[in-house]
């Protein structure tokens, strides 16, 4: 459970964040400090028989029925870029 080598830039990349060098430096010490506190959980002697599947609230499902959705023009009003009633994005497929 050691956190001593958290690679902030690598984890940020996993989270699609492009940090500056200053941010990496600041977050490194702050996250080490936070993880140091979180690590106190590892010292706890936990019972073996704890059931983690018992949250009925989160297990509730509704019937799979189509319901009214937002009108396309309402959705598009927030799109940073659009064309022909669709959201436009930069090219996804790389050049061969």
């Amino acid at each position: 459970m050691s956190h001593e080598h958290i690679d902030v830039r690598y984890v940020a990349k996993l989270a699609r964040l492009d940090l500056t060098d200053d941010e990496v430096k600041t977050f490194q010490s702050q996250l080490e400090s936070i993880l140091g506190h979180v690590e106190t959980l590892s010292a706890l002697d936990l019972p073996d028989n704890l059931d983690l599947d018992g949250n009925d609230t989160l297990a509730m499902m509704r019937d799979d029925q189509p319901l009214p959705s937002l009108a396309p023009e309402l959705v598009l009003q927030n799109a940073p870029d659009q064309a022909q009633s669709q959201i436009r994005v930069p090219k996804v497929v790389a050049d061969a």
Partner: protein
Amino acid sequence: MTLTALRQQFLNGETTPTKIIEDLAGKIKARDETTKAFVSYNIERSLEIAGKADISKPLGGLPIAIKDNINTFGQPCTCGSNFLNKSYVSPYDATVIKKLLNAGAVPFGRTNMDEFAMGSATENSAIQLTRNPRDPERIAGGSSGGSAAAVADGTAFAALGSDTGGSIRQPASHCGVVGLKPTYGRVSRYGLVAFASSLDQIGPLTLSVDDSALILQAIAGHDSRDTSSLDAPVPDYAATINDGVEGLTLGIPEEYFSDGIHSGVRKNVEQCIQQLERQGAKILPISLPYTSHVVAAYYVIAPAEASSNLSRFDGIRYGNRSKNASDIIDVYHQSREEGFGPEVKRRIILGTYVLSSGYYDAFYTRAQKVRKLITRDFTQAFEKVDAIISPVTPAPARRIGACADDPLQDYLSDIFTIGANLAGIPAISVPCGTTAYDGAPALPVGVQILAPHLGEPMMLRVAKAAEGASLH
């Protein structure tokens, strides 16, 4: 003036909903330059709703400010973030907004907040810093700091906030108003921009416990659009609110009165407990042994959920899209780097880390087990007591900027509020006098009342008695 008193003025014909909206707009212009509780407000839209208000309805014509992470059709919803500021307009109403409108209320004003509700001081808002109306050199608390400050400053009669680890109760305590976090699932989260979905709840910030019950009555109930919404009948909260505490057993958790709490906070809360005892309550010392682990468990679970929830902010469908990106992957990276502030980035990285391969069981699974044990603590306590009484925070409002480089210190101050979120139980903060603190002569103190799952009637009953007790 409370909502209840304002409602009576409407019914007596002493004033009108449109006059009140105009008055509030004037107060915001005059007072909010310093407090900065409001991010925006749309007077034309609110006057239109107020002009048609049916004052015979439960919230008929009553203005309610809305935290800026709750979608309201046609209004901005910044979440205190540059990612959404000036680029996003809500295309729909959150369920709570629909319910407020159905009850006759007039949503008016969007209140400031820590970015995506991550913070305890409203210092993490990318829009502006909200100051405490009781002392402008102090934080208003957070993340619903704008809502609490507006109610305390008289620029709102009541407001909605959201509470993931104390974000309604802590600012309410720091600003001297009432803040209620309902049972998880009691109020629909549909249309609330998600931070940590297993913990988030919407609730009211008000000037009185009665007002709190009035708003909860309107916004509670099942919603098929929120799968975590509870399909349980909504009781009449006003029916038992004045029943008093005679014959009730109130639990005092020893872990919440440790050496770490400020002497003035301890004194005020203990005096409130003594008053409740004089009113006929039986006081029973109890133990919640896992209290010292709530912050650690929370700062695994909440960032883990946040890192997943905030992946939707990718610069594609709404919000900031970087103009400097070279390809689609770069759009994600650059848009998020530009749009998010430091606290949000910190928590996304923390959440991504604890969910990553090799660390998941050590951090996330372990935190979930501790969450179970924290919940068990409360369940076992409520077999012996009707409600639990504690301070809301270890100390009154700190100075602005005092934790700027040390986020862990701010996290640790959430120790008394997080437990209710992890356990999914209701909790309320009620003003409990003032105390001298760190050079300030009189800062508000809050007393917290926690009740069992769906125990809002009991919680409100004790809260009303505590509110009366703190007036003596």
